[in-house]
């Protein structure tokens, strides 16, 4: 058993036309046993930037707090909000700091920058960044998410089309992953608002 699969959970993010989507399941498990089905793995960084943290649940909590601390310090020193591109590098260096005793988290970052351009990125557990132009996936259902996304995603989707596409990508993958599921939540980030929706999913 890998520690990366101890609690289960998955996150996917995708670009659209002037928007991005980030979605995750809600399961918290202890190997085969489900502990909770309200464990949201996606956290706000700024108004228009979110981070998804699938992996070991204790490290989800730790990293969430560490990022909150470091983003607050950045805001106070710089007197401005952090850009998603900058935050991605913050994530990377935070993880690489623990190169030989890593956090067991593979983060996903999604947001709109100050010019309202969509940005997504994913990282491995020691901070290797992947700036994808289309979509990024992470967690125990990563390979299923790759299969779904590679088949369903297309460029320049509007917010509602992107919502439907990313929801189908996530729900389809969750049904074939034993360690993810038990509810799902999706956020569509647009220049003027963030649409947050809880999806009706299979609860098994």
């Amino acid at each position, binding site marked *: 058993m890998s520690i990366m699969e101890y609690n289960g959970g998955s996150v996917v993010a995708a670009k659209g036309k002037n928007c991005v989507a980030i979605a995750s399941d809600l399961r918290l498990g202890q190997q085969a046993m489900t502990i909770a089905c309200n464990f949201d793995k996606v956290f706000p960084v700024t108004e228009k930037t979110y981070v998804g943290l699938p992996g070991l649940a204790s490290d989800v909590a730790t990293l969430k707090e560490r990022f909150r601390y470091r983003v607050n310090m950045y805001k106070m020193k710089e007197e401005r909000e952090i850009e998603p591109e900058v935050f991605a590098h913050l994530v990377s260096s935070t993880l690489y700091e623990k190169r030989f005793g890593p956090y067991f988290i593979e983060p996903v970052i999604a947001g709109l920058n100050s010019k309202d351009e969509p940005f997504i990125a994913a990282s491995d557990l020691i901070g290797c960044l992947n700036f994808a132009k289309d979509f990024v996936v992470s967690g125990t259902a990563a*390979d*299923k998410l790759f299969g*779904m996304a590679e*088949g369903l995603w297309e460029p320049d989707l509007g917010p509602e089309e992107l919502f439907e596409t990313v929801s*189908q990508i996530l729900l*389809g993958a969750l*049904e*074939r992953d034993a360690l993810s599921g038990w509810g799902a939540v999706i956020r569509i980030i647009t220049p003027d608002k963030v649409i947050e929706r809880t999806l009706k999913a299979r609860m098994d």
Partner: protein
Amino acid sequence: MSVLGYPGASVRPAAAHPHQARGPVGHQFSPYDSNGGSIAAVCGSDFCVIASDTRQSTGYNIQTRYKPKVFRLNDKATLATNGFAADAEAFVSLIRQRLEWYRHAHGRSMPLHSIARMISTMLYGKRFFPYYVYNILGGLDEEGKGAVYSFDPVGSYEREFCRAAGAAQSLIQPFLDNQIMFRNQVSTPERQVPTPGQMTLPEVLKIVTDSFTSATERHIEVGDGLEIYVVRTPTKLGAQAVGAASVDLAALPSAVPQTVDEAYGGEDEQEDGAVMVIRRDLKLD
């Protein structure tokens, strides 16, 4: 990496100094290997599509770019095999032999459901030294309806509408669940969700092709070529083409060149148009 290509083949205790006597050399023969690749099958109301990529590999090494994994058994049955290529080869030739014996005894081809049960018992016959092969059997049942049977290596089997197996199973199966079984789709006033198994041949071919191009994109063991077998009821000469048989496969739009051929091989005398094979490249760049 050893010559024979299995782990442990060249394991020997390291000598502290080159002039010192070497310790006993241990050899461990592993009878299995995994040869990558992926297969998938989808059935419609009066046809069945059985597809595979044509790459064969061990680890990161490509052995060949064209090694078919789909085999025409007769006019109504086609078998896709995936896993350990040597076992697959031996297993398919054994099936072929059993089908020939059946023909000599009964004077007709073995029906699909009987082939499925036979494959199951043949696999379970080697329960404690299994054929390391995942099989998907596709064809037409005795009512002429499309059918897919999928098997595990020790003979557990099930009839389904669609199934993916092999290296990219986890990439392809959720996509087929969504596009063939319409999972997670709900009807709206604008669009009624169709019932599974009612799709037309061109629609199914498009989805199967997309499955493999997607898998090629994200899985290193999948690629090189795509071979899609289509099992249908052959249209009688001069008669109006009906159902799947009416579809002109050559007219299927594709940016990548594809060939459409009559499929050969199998134990029966073949009827034209019963089993077709479509071939195309999978991303050679």
